[in-house]
C-alpha cells in the first residue's frame, strides 16, 4: 500500500505554470482585441507614429519645417524674430524689409514668374522679390563683425556656386516633413509638388499631390497642380481635363467666400491656364470665354481687359462658343 502524498509535496511543473499563464494571456487578448480595434478605428491618426508622438504639437513643428525650407531656399539668409519685429514696428525699416524674406511665401509657386501670366501677381511686386543685396542696418561693431559669421546676402539656391548638383532639391526634405507632420496644411502639398516639378520629378510631384488629395479631398489647388504636372509631362489633354475639374471644384469649394484673396488667386491660376491651353490648341473662342470668366476675380482687370481685346481682334465675334462648364 502506498503512502498518501503530503500536500506540500505537490509542486506544479514550471512549464505547466507558464502554459497556464500563456493560455490566460491569449484568452484575455481575444477578449480585448475587438474592443481595442473599435477604439482605434475612432482615431483617424492611429497609423501615424508622428501624430502619436507629437499630437497636435506636430502642426507647430510642421510650420517650423516649412519655414526651414524657406531658409534653405535663401541659403540660410533669414531674419531673426527680433529683426522681423523691428521691421514691422519701424516705418523707416521698409526699405530694409524689402531685401529680406519675411514669410515662407517666398518659396510658394506664386513667387515664381511661371504662374504670373498676367504679371499682376502680388508676390512678384512684393518686397520679397526685390533681389537687392543691401544689408540690414547694423547697430554696432559687434553686430557688424558677427554678420561675417552668418549668411548676410539675399540669394537663392539657384545661385549656389559651390559646385553641388541641383541644389534646389535641398529644400525637399523639409517640405516632405512639413506635409507629413501636418497633412491638412494645403501649402505644404502645393509647395512640395512645385519644387518636385522644378527639380524634374514630375511623377513624384503627382504622387505627392495625390497623397495631398487623400487628406484634403477635391481641393481645387491640388487638382490644378496635378494638371500642371500633366502639362509638364506633355499630356495637354489630361491637363485640360484636370483644370476643368479644378474649376468645377473651385465653384463648389469657394462658393461662400469667392471674394477672398486665396479664392481669387486660385481662380486666376485655373482660368488663366485654361485660357492659355485653349488658345494653344487653337480654340480661341473658348480661350476668350475663360478670360471673360476670370475678369471678376482678376487682381488686375485692366491688364486682363487688354489681353481680351487682343484676343478679340483675332476672333470673329459671331464664332464665340459658350463655355462648356460653369
Amino acid at each position, binding site marked *: 500500500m502506498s503512502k498518501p502524498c503530503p500536500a506540500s509535496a505537490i509542486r506544479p511543473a514550471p512549464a505547466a505554470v507558464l502554459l497556464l499563464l500563456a493560455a490566460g494571456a491569449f484568452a484575455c487578448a481575444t477578449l480585448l482585441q475587438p474592443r481595442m480595434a473599435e477604439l482605434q478605428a475612432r482615431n483617424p491618426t492611429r497609423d501615424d507614429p508622428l501624430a502619436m508622438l507629437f499630437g497636435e504639437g506636430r502642426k507647430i513643428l510642421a510650420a517650423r519645417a516649412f519655414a526651414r525650407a524657406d531658409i*534653405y531656399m535663401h*541659403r*540660410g539668409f533669414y531674419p*531673426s524674430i*527680433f*529683426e522681423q*519685429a*523691428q521691421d514691422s*514696428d519701424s516705418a523707416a525699416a521698409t526699405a530694409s524689409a524689402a531685401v529680406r524674406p519675411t514669410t515662407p511665401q517666398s518659396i510658394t509657386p506664386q513667387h515664381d514668374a511661371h504662374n504670373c501670366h498676367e504679371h499682376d501677381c502680388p508676390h512678384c511686386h512684393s518686397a520679397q522679390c526685390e533681389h537687392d543685396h543691401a544689408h540690414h542696418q547694423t*547697430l*554696432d561693431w*559687434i*553686430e557688424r*563683425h*558677427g554678420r*561675417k*559669421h*552668418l*549668411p548676410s546676402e539675399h540669394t537663392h539656391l539657384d545661385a*549656389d556656386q*559651390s*559646385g*553641388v*548638383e541641383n541644389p534646389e*532639391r*535641398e529644400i*525637399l*526634405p*523639409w517640405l*516632405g516633413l512639413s506635409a507629413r507632420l501636418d497633412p491638412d496644411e494645403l501649402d505644404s502639398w502645393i509647395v512640395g509638388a512645385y519644387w*518636385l516639378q522644378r*527639380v524634374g*520629378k514630375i511623377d*513624384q510631384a503627382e504622387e*505627392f499631390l495625390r497623397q495631398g488629395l487623400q487628406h484634403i479631398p477635391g481641393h481645387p489647388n491640388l487638382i490644378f497642380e496635378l494638371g500642371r504636372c500633366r502639362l509638364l509631362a506633355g499630356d495637354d489633354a489630361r491637363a485640360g481635363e484636370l483644370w476643368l475639374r479644378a474649376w468645377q471644384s473651385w465653384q463648389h469649394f469657394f462658393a461662400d467666400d469667392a471674394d477672398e484673396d486665396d479664392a481669387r488667386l486660385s481662380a486666376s491660376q485655373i482660368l488663366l491656364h485654361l485660357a492659355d491651353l485653349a488658345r494653344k490648341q487653337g480654340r480661341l473662342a473658348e480661350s476668350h470665354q475663360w478670360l471673360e470668366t476670370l475678369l471678376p476675380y482678376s487682381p488686375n482687370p485692366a491688364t486682363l481687359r487688354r489681353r481680351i481685346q487682343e484676343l478679340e481682334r483675332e476672333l470673329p465675334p459671331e464664332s464665340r462658343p459658350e463655355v462648356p462648364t460653369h
Partner: protein
Amino acid sequence: MKKISTIARIVVLEMIRRKDVYVMFFLTAVITLLLGSVNIFGEVGIARYLKEVCLTLVWLFSVIIAIVSTARQLPAERENRTIFPLLAKPVSRWQLLLGKFCGCWLACLLSLALFYSFFIFLSGTREGIWPLLSYLQAFWLHCLFCAVVVALSLLGSVVFSAVSANVTITTTLVVFILLLGRHLHRIATRIQDLRGRLLEVIYFAIPHLEWFDIRDLIIHNWPPLDLLTVVLDTAYAALFSAIFLVLAWLRFRRQPLD
C-alpha cells in the same frame, strides 16, 4: 611649463578613459546615419539637412563635454583629497588652473577632431565637394568656442560649491549667449527705460560666443571667412579665456581647499 603639461596630460588621459565622448560620438553617428538612410522622393545626394543635424549634435555634445568635464575637475581633486599632494609638489595654484584649462581644452580639441572627421567624411561623400578650408575654419572656431567655455566653466568651479550648480549655470549662460547674444542690443533699443540700458551693458560685456558658430555658412556652402576675421576671432577668444582664467585664479588663490 612642464608641470602645466603634466597636469594637462593627466586630464586628457582621464577623459580618454571615460566613455562620455565615445557614447556621444556613437549617438551622433547613429542619428545622422539613420536620417541619411531616409528616402526623400528617391533623391540621393541631398546633404544639407544631414549636415545641419550632424553639426547641431556636434555643437550640443561639445557644450556638454566642455562644461561637464571642466566643472568636475577641481571639485573631484578636492573630494579625493588629491589636491593637497598636487599642490605640495610644489605646483602653484595658477599652474594647476592653467594645467586643468589646457587639459580640458585639449580633450575638447581631440573629441572635436573626431566629430569633425566624421562630419567632413559624411558631407564630402554625400555632396561630392570638399571645401576643406571652410571645414577647417569651422573646426578652429569651434575650438576657440570651447576654450572660452572651458575657461568659464573653470571660473564657475571655483565660484560655485557644487558641480551641478556650476554645470547648470554655465550651460544656461552659454545657451543664452548662443541663442540671444547677438540680438540683445536690438532688444535693448526697443526698451527705453533702465532695463534697456542694462541689456545694452550686458550685450557689450558678454563674450559673443555666437561668433564662433558658422554652421549656417558650412551647411549652405558659403565661401570661407577671410583670414582677418578668423584672426580677430582668435584674439577675441584668447582675451575672454584669459579674463576668465585670471578671475578664476584671483578667486582660487586665497580659497581654502577643505
